[in-house]
């Protein structure tokens, strides 16, 4: 029986096109993703083979989620096909074997649902075969096709995932006997999946997140997060570790569901619910007289409202709607209560954070819109009431518009409900600054156009297509598919992308600007366009019993009254005018280049101008700026006077300038004339006549100005805005000389254009001499210079430039400020203007100032403390602070970063200012970030590395280390620091896994952030633990004294020469292992047991395993001889908060037994209990102590 059902189901489906169609979709997607860069599945492939097991696994796990919808179709069919054809009563009355029927069908559906996903394998295999031959991808980007990866993916992911989805859908289908419910079930699984992802948003919950992931997708992500490229190319996922447990959990879960649903399945029809009709009381005979009724001229308004209302309640009462509604609520709630932003902390429930959460539900609302657009248009015909309705005297446009409005109103009520929910959440959280205007404008700019245009468009699509399912398909293509097509065609105009508009981001400082004007016009363009489509679709509206388009249209002929034609032409004309207006603004007034064009331009620039790379260029030695910012006009005028010197021993005769496309620039070079203007690459050539002789200086005047014109396709510049303008000196001046920053950097793209590999950072040299005359920040265009600025802005704002404020005055409606730096500094400045409140504190003659928005005062005291703490620690341990002021300046959240300029530190409003620190008595993200940026006042601004390998270690590693040390200075327990180090460890290990070129040892770091921040800080922190805080700081301080504010610039070797004498001989290996090589540890605690001795003390025996691994630049690892000092320790508590005992032991063997005498009972034991060594898997370092 089983066999019969199994094979007949299989045979039936294999004769249907569905399975092949699904297979083809998957195949095509994967093939495209594998053999082009235009299509991506689960992120870019990066540096590993395009057919690596890691890529196969990523593709498989992502496609499995799509696969759910296939599964829904197959399992639902297997359960309900007999019912659909009304065959079940005949079939079920035959002597069927329940087991064979139930599981035969199920197994066949299971097999069928995995078939489309085989498309992944075929796509990869074919891509491997064809892409190199066709020349799409270089042959060396492919490794051998690994069949074993296909096999393990099939059994690890595809089969279990389809089993999981199938068991639930099959159960639902049998239970509810409704296709819709089955698909809703599939949807629920997807939601559950996305909710489980919330658990992963902080490192602490990673394991939990990996367990609850129903598809094992993120489980694999957790496992592979530290994989090096080599490992990604070779490792196959296997039934082990986290993945084993995850798969075990979900396979068992599926089997339980299946068993339960089998037990409750019966061939007998479920009794259709019959509500016992209440015995009717002999009802009173009422005799209603026939009323006199006025059948007047039909009333447009009444008919419209009646249509609207009857459709509105029908959706609102629809089960599918209620389920989707419920799930969007669950999604919203889970989004509100979970999710950490930084270091396990959350922001206050600011209104803009709430509106972001509301936007997160829009996917559900879109699903509701797609589904009900079809439902609404078809319900009259589906329920066969169309003829009655159609034969009533109403104008066809009335139901068309009323239905659209009912759909739209529903989304509005959903939105209002969501707003109500999040406002409640804000109140529950005790947050009372509820900004209803933000809710309103968020709605106006985002949700309103999205829902309105979507409702209108989808209704029109359903009417025109006149086939419900085809209509659904067209709808999905418009919403999702259009962008794929546009990206393939390299079209970036938002006028063609569905509901495209510039990116709008709300900032507490700047509101919805500066792109809101563009967004408004784009939205208007879309709304009117959608209405035009809707009115046009009125012609296609199927009234009466007509079906073909010809008939539908002919039926209308002669009935297209003048009013309708007027409407069409008015709306059409308005739309065309809008389109022209938007086109003029985004394509002519603010033209842009597509990404392909930009790529080609970069290639061309490199090919044309690379030869000037080493051409001599003058250095700036003094700068005077006169800056006028007009925040409300979004404009700026700047005139700069730069004193330049020819630092070479030969004359400079030509000068290459990279001018800006956005800024108007006017140059005045004495003795130089413009000889060539390359409009395509925005390059100007000046020739000096007479030549600019060696050692000579000259004063250059440059006038630059910026005007905002209309609105742009991609949005307005965020540099000059209403409140929070933020410019740096690179933006306002032309670039001198060949700019290698304009080169294409992606290795694969460079290959595509046949460019040689990008120049690497200059190699680290000992005694570099003249090669150390450039630092990596300013690239040899200046050293430490004096700067004076006069900056003006509108009267209600404060403008800030580097240095001390010397004067401040008002003239008309403008406010002027004159600043001058107190000490020659790096030529690396920012100019800022906004409405600020200033919090001040004086620390030993230094003015600490925090310029912040008036709404963001809550964490200011903590910030002042952090600045003060940093100043204290750094001046004591490194050297004096060289400025008279120390400013933190808030800027709008268009970017999320903090940055150190000499004496000033711009800090984004998005993190720090709005983080909830009420329950934090410990160090936190603010302390960490401020201490880091403060440290840059020494490391980067007093001493900065030469422009060669290892340069960033001297600024970023030192700053991150300094930051850790200030935190350590107030940490109450040794364990507190582990929490912070954890993030640096993770940053390093994750970073090296994603390395696209090659990993280098710390002292040769090439501006790779995971190395200089992550590894650098961890290593320096560990080093001070091993040799002493004083020793490391002494080395730093001596190094600083030797090199501050001088050229040539130092290298990492120079620093090591100060460090090495501080390291005792016994630990000398640390310099080699940690700084000069790539060393990782793989330590673990095998077991820990304790015995109570007679003395009342505990003898704790630890069995430990330690190994040291050296890695090369591409991730090849080899174990090396062990000769290490490593900590072991005991915790009193299972939360690992109190380290009761710690000892540093010398290890030479892979396996060691250690005995410790503890005076009280330990809960846990650990090797490297404070996590100071770089250990690829740290979790296994700690074990509970077994008490014998």
């Amino acid at each position, binding site marked *: 029986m089983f066999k019969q059902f199994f094979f007949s189901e299989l045979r039936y489906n294999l004769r249907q096109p569905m399975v092949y169609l699904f297979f083809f979709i998957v195949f095509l997607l994967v093939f495209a993703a594998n053999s082009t860069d235009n299509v991506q599945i689960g992120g870019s492939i990066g540096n590993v083979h395009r057919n690596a097991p890691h890529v196969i696994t990523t593709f498989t796990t992502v496609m499995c989620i799509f696969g759910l919808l296939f599964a829904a179709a197959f399992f639902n069919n297997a359960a309900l096909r007999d019912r659909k054809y009304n065959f079940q009563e005949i079939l079920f009355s035959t002597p069927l074997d329940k087991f064979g029927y139930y599981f035969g069908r199920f197994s066949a559906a299971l097999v069928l649902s995995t078939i489309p996903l085989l498309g992944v394998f075929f796509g990869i295999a074919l891509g491997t075969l064809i892409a190199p031959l066709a020349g799409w991808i270089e042959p060396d980007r492919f490794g051998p096709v690994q069949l074993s990866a296909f096999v393990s993916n099939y059994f690890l992911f595809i089969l279990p995932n389809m089993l999981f989805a199938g068991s639930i859908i099959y159960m639902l289908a049998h239970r509810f006997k409704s296709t819709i419910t089955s698909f809703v079930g599939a949807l629920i699984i997807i939601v559950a999946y996305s909710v489980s992802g919330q658990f992963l948003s902080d490192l602490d919950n990673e394991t939990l997140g990996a367990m609850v992931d129903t598809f094992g997708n993120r489980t694999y992500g957790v496992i592979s997060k530290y994989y090096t490229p080599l490992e990604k190319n070779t490792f196959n996922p296997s039934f082990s570790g986290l993945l084993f447990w995850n798969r075990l959990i979900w396979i068992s879960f599926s089997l339980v569901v299946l068993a339960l649903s089998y037990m409750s399945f019966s061939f007998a029809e479920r009794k259709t619910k019959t509500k016992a009709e209440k015995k*009717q009381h002999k*009802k009173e005979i*009422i*005799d*209603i*007289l*026939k*009323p*006199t*009724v*006025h*059948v*007047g*001229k*039909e*009333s447009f308004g*009444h*008919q419209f*409202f*009646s*249509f609207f*209302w*009857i459709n509105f*309640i*029908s959706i609102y*009462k*629809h089960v599918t709607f209620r389920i989707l509604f419920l799930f969007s609520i669950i999604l919203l709630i889970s989004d509100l209560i979970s999710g950490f932003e930084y270091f396990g902390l959350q922001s206050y429930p600011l209104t803009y954070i709430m509106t972001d959460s509301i936007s997160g539900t829009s996917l559900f609302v879109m699903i509701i819109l797609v589904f009900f657009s079809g439902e609404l248009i078809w*319900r009259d015909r589906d*329920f*066969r*009431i169309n*003829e*009655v*309705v*159609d*034969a*009533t*005297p*109403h*104008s066809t446009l009335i139901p068309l518009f009323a239905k659209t409005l009912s759909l739209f109103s529903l989304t509005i009520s959903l939105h209002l409900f969501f707003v109500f929910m999040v406002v409640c959440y804000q109140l529950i959280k005790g947050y009372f600054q509820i900004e209803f205007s933000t809710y309103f404008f968020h709605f106006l700019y985002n949700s309103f156009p999205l829902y309105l245009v979507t409702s209108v468009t989808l209704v029109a699509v359903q009417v025109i297509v006149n086939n419900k399912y085809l209509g659904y398909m067209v709808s999905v293509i418009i919403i999702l598919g259009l962008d794929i097509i546009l990206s393939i065609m390299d079209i970036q105009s938002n006028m063609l992308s569905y509901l495209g508009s510039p990116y709008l981001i709300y900032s507490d400082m700047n509101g919805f600007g500066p792109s809101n004007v563009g967004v408004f016009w784009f939205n208007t363009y879309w709304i009117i366009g959608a209405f035009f489509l809707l009115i046009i679709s009125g012609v296609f509206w199927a*009234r*009466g*019993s*007509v079906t*073909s388009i010809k008939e539908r249209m*002919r*039926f209308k002929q*002669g*009935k297209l009254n003048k009013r309708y034609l007027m409407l069409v032409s008015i709306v059409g004309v308005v739309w065309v005018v809008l389109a022209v207006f938007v086109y003029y603004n985004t394509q002519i007034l603010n033209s842009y280049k597509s990404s392909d064009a930009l790529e080609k331009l970069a290639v061309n620039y490199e090919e044309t101008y690379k030869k000037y790379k080493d051409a001599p260029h003058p250095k700036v030695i003094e700068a005077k700026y006169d800056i006028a910012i007009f925040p409300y006009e979004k404009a700026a005028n700047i005139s700069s006077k730069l004193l330049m010197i020819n630092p070479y021993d030969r004359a400079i005769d030509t000068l290459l300038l990279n001018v800006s496309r956005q800024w108007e620039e006017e140059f005045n070079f004495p003795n130089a004339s413009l000889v060539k203007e390359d409009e395509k690459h925005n390059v100007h050539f000046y020739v000096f006549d007479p030549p600019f002789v060696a050692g000579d200086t000259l004063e250059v005047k440059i006038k630059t100005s910026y005007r905002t014109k209309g609105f742009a396709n991609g949005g307005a510049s965020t540099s000059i805005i209403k409140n929070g303008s933020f410019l740096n000196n690179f933006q306002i001046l032309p670039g001198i000389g060949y700019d290698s920053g304009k080169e294409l950097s992606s290795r694969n793209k460079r290959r595509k254009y046949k460019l040689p590999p990008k120049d690497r950072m200059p190699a680290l040299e000992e005694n570099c001499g003249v090669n150390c005359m450039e630092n990596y920040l300013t690239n040899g265009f200046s050293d430490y210079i004096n700067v004076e600025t006069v900056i003006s802005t509108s009267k209600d704002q404060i403008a800030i430039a580097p240095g001390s404020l010397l004067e401040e005055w008002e003239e008309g409606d403008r406010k002027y400020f004159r600043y001058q730096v107190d000490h020659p500094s790096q030529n690396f400045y920012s100019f800022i203007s906004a409405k600020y409140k200033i919090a001040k504190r004086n620390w030993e003659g230094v003015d600490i100032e925090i310029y912040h928005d008036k709404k963001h005062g809550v964490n200011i005291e903590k910030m002042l403390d952090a600045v003060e703490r940093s100043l204290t620690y750094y001046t004591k341990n490194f050297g004096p602070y060289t400025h008279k002021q120390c400013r933190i300046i808030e800027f709008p959240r268009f970017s999320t970063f903090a940055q150190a300029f000499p004496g000033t530190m711009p800090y984004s409003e998005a993190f720090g200012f709005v983080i909830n620190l009420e329950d934090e008595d410990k160090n936190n993200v603010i302390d960490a970030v401020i201490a880091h940026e403060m440290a840059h006042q020494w490391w980067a601004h007093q001493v900065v590395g030469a422009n060669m390998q290892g340069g960033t270690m001297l600024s970023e590693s030192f700053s991150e280390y300094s930051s850790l040390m200030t935190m350590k200075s107030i940490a109450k327990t040794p364990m507190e620091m582990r929490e912070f180090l954890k993030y640096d460890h993770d940053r390093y290990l994750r970073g090296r896994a994603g390395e696209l070129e090659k990993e280098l040892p710390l002292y040769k770091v090439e501006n790779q952030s995971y190395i200089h921040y992550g590894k650098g800080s961890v290593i320096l922190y560990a080093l001070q633990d091993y040799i002493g805080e004083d020793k490391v700081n002494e080395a730093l301080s001596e190094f600083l004294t030797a090199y501050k504010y001088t050229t040539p610039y130092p290298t990492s070797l120079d620093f090591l020469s100060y460090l090495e004498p501080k390291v005792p001989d016994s630990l000398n290996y640390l310099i080699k292992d940690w700084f000069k090589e790539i060393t990782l540890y793989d330590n673990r605690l095998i077991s820990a047991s304790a015995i109570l001795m007679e003395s009342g003390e505990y003898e704790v025996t630890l069995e430990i395993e330690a190994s040291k691994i050296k890695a090369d630049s591409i991730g090849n690892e080899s174990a090396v001889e062990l000769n290490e000092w490593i900590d072991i320790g005991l915790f009193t508590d299972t939360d690992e908060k109190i380290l009761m005992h710690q000892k540093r032991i010398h290890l030479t063997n892979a396996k060691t037994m250690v005995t410790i005498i503890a005076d009280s009972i330990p809960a846990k034991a650990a090797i490297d209990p404070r996590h100071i060594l770089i250990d690829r898997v740290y979790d296994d370092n700690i074990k509970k102590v077994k008490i014998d």
Partner: protein
Amino acid sequence: MGKLQLKNLTKTYANNVKAMDDITIDISSGMFGLLGPNGAGKSSLMRTIATLQEPDSGSITFGDLDPLKNPKEFRKILGYLPQEFGVYPRISAEQLLDHLATLKGVSNKGERKDLVHYLLQKVNLFDKRNKSVKGFSGGMKQRVGIAQALIGNPKVLIVDEPTAGLDPGERNRFYDLISDVGEDVIVILSTHIVDDVRELCTSMAVLNYGSIVFNGTPDEGIHELEGRVFEKKIERSELEKYTQNYNVISNRLIGGKPVIHVLGEKPDEDFSAIAPSLEDVFFSKLQG
């Protein structure tokens, strides 16, 4: 009140089926029965009159109104109950009728409510007015259907196969309702049940393969056949012989044996003359 005049209506569907083949009839007030076997084109004709589809050619006039050119005006005086009257799920009888009453131009809310209540009472559904129509039985649904068709005092009432699926009691109640409408109203009733026409209609037409094969009063039809219909009980095996030799217009089984009706001269002594029924008219017209 005016007459409904159909002239030369023709309609051919995409699959070459001739649904209407040069149909010309005048329909005046009172009940008009449209009789025809399944697939004769009754519904196409009804839908065409109800402005739901257009003929390929031909014209319709009602007084000075041209429903084809100005369907909106005609719809104002039209009541239509299609063959399959479906209802929205999750909507109560009262809500549904209220909606349709609004569409038919009963704009005053109070009047509309009174009207809906009156009609619900009339079709004996007043106490179920808040129930979802979807859960109604076929007969109850059909009663909602007639209630909606009566909204707004239609001058032309079209009911397409209204009694299909109704039990005899429901059928009778249904006809009571229809015969209750005013005398100056044109009621077009399509059916394939001869008795319906016999009992209700003052005039009738028989439709076959899209063309009118008879148009007149039922009595006229019967009168035409007076003395020309004969009946005989035969053996089953003889059926073929009789059909070949005589003009057999119908046969049916009575007590397991075929009884045939023959049209024309009395064939032989074994045949007995009978008074022709409307059914004989129907069958004879179908044979042309």
